[in-house]
């Protein structure tokens, strides 16, 4: 029997070649296209998802090693698209073409889990692997700080 992988709360059999990167399992096997293909080498971050809460480049992570793991993609980050980062992204009108933003948001969500109040330098260093060719970096930084503030308010 196929091993299972949990994606956004739902179990799926890993019924493909074990070496297939998670990215293509998501996009081609499950037809969940929110996670994007950017470079195929882990250089750009467009394909970022969370594996057990940790930001992971799905284009270089074989699906076969993820049996029993919990994967969160942009489609599953929040039930109603109301994660503080998603709200902050809208507040700051971050997206231009928007293609890299799923990866940006998933990486930022993982950062805020580890470090709920990141400094500007900490945001830079955590988000360094995510390229945006449209150049939305200034807004990404602002949105992450804003989301961190909202999370702090929710906690207190």
């Amino acid at each position, binding site marked *: 029997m196929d091993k299972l992988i949990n994606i956004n709360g739902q179990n799926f059999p890993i019924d*493909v*070649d074990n070496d*297939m*990167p998670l990215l*293509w399992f998501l*996009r*081609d*096997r499950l*037809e*969940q*296209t*929110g*996670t*994007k*293909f*950017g*470079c*195929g*080498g882990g*250089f*750009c971050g*467009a394909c970022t998802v969370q594996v057990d809460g940790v930001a992971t480049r799905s284009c270089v992570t074989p699906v076969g090693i993820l049996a029993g793991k919990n994967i969160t*993609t*942009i*489609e599953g*980050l929040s039930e109603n*698209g109301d994660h503080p980062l*998603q709200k902050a*992204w*809208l507040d700051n*009108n*971050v*997206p*231009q*073409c*928007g*293609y*890299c*933003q*799923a990866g940006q*948001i998933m990486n930022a969500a993982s950062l805020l889990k580890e470090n709920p109040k990141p400094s500007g330098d900490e*945001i*830079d*260093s955590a*988000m*360094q692997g*995510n*390229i*945006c*060719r*449209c*150049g*939305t*970096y*200034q*807004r*990404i*930084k602002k949105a992450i700080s804003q989301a961190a503030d909202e999370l702090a308010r929710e906690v207190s």
Partner: protein
Amino acid sequence: MTINLNFNKKSEKSAKIENLSRRSFLKTAGLATGGLVIGIAIPTQTMAHGKKIEQAAFNPNAFIHIQENGDTLIYCGRCEMGQGISTALPAAVADELEADWSRVTVKQGDADEKYGPQATGGSASIRRMFIPMREAGAAAKLMLIAAAAKVWNIPAEQCIAKNHFVINSNNQQKLSYGELASLAANITVPEKPALKAKSEYNYIGKALPRHDQGEVVVGKRIYGVDTKIPGLKYAAITHCPVFGGKLKSVEKSAALAMKGVSAVVEIPRFDVPYGSIGGVAVVADNNWTAQQALKKLKIEWDLGENQSYDTQAYKAQLVKNVESPAQVATERGDLTAAFASAKQKHSATYTGGHLSHSPMEPNASVVYVEKDKCEVWAATQAPAAIQDVLSKYLKREPKDIIVHVTMAGGAFGRKFKCDYVHEAAVISEKTGSPIQLTWSREEDMRTGYYHSISAQHIEASLDNNGNVSGWLHRIAFPPIDSLFNPATDRPSKGDVSAADDYPFGLANYRSEIGEAKAHTRIGWYRAVYAIFYGFSFSSMADELAYKAGKDPLIFLNNLYDANEIVEQKEQVKRSKNILALAAEKSGYHQRANLPKGQGIGLAIHYSFQSYVAMAVRVESDGDNIKVLQVDCVIDCGQVLNKDGATAQMEGAVVMGMSLALSTEVTFRNGAVVNSNFHNYPVMRISDMPHVNVHIVESDIKPTGLGEPGVAPFAPALANAVFAASGKRYRDLPFKPMTV
């Protein structure tokens, strides 16, 4: 990107608006009927490679459809790639229509000649469509008012349209747009409807959010690469690494033996603009298998005539070509006399490398070629060009090629040239399956279209007052025209017109064109030639200011003041104004107080009829460069969407910074050496300076902003580094990565 700059100079005819609610072709255009449908025909005189399109009786470029439930669809024929056009223009329609923006849905129009030319480039959408789109909105509003007046049996003057309702001003009774839509469909379209005054705008000039960002943040926005249709097969492709080469042999058996692989398809070079350069593709059940199988092909290429192309040697040759006399393009005044009587002379040579657009969404499309049907889903800037190429390949009528235009995950000029759609069509035709072809990042970087490599040499003289008295400008770069005419061996006079018409109005001036044959595909890249013209003019002006012992800002103003060309009066005025603002906002006048090692540089460029000045503040010892702050001032006439305009400038700074500091495509033995983002180092978040965007308030007709912000960044940075450290950078990028 510019298609035909001369278009800008022609007078623009006014648009035609028609009531289409009862017209049968709505069905063929894929539009639902019922309610009120207004079409707008905007005269457009050019399209790809200069071919003229004659307009038939009525070809609307856009539609407004007010449905009977009040939901309002605005179809936009222009392509969206992140520049925000699909928000800016529909919002202008909604404003004149007095529509409730929350009831408006923006729809991307499929490729259809009924929309008129849809090619999106040259920062032209707003420039051409601002007035016509508003007129259509205003006409629809008047028709809704007339319908309400009929219902109430009162003069139209007693009715007011507001927020999706028409209100009876006698008794405050209301009728919704939905209730009125079908009645309004029977009203004659008013000619030349009056437009709102600026003070009455609801949406124009405000910071309206992008209409689609809610879908983006939950991963539901569908891009070209996301298209799924039943029976889809996936293809991966590799091309001959050298432009002009062709396939000698391919050993397919190992690839075909892989589980899930269904075909290996040879794609011959198709010698039309935007056709495939030739390659081999593998078809499989999914992208991953196709990519793995591709690696198992054993391919031999005949590399052809460009196999010795080496950009380092080529650039050195371009420099030679501009450092010696070349073909004269334009002469004004008496340059020889100016040079003979010069107090001082100064010369400099500026170069720039090839660039790859590298949008985050790689080239991808879905094509299904059937016996009597061909359907395309693709991110594209030029839907009609896809129809053109596929009609030639399949020998069918362009109108029989159905092109669904998807959102583009970035384009920057790359997706104007849809070779990746042609290739998917070949594979689909040969296999009989619907095909999704996705280029790898490596193929995009290595076998794409490239921004032109360039060299410019300027010699200038200063008179006794330290003012410019003469200017010789030599230019060499392989031009885009080489795509359409392979015999092209240097830029045309039109290609150097941006130098000839530079708003300094240089009285004693000569331009010369050096030889530069293309050895790869040259293509429009965001801002196009403005990238290197902006760099050379603003850099040289700064160099001359120091030579003359003058403040660079004062020196620039002197240059503009000396411009006696009457047609450039407005350019001079607007240029000086944004320079003054950039200086003021950036603290330029207080720069003596900056910490040691910091400096501010100014630059300005007029392109695509918009004006952008930048003041860049850096910390630099000459080798290490940290960009601290950018103050960007734009004058693009009236601004449609302040937030969109600001975003375009922030993005232009980022792209400008990549090309100024680090990105360059290098060819060796005919092939590109770079392969992915690790050796094509685009700017990342930690490099991001603080960017302030200042917008000049204006009532002048609006012009576009997709490209004009890119040009001034690199020279402003070079000038800032010089101010901080005394080191002058004249070669783009300043810090090339050794690949």
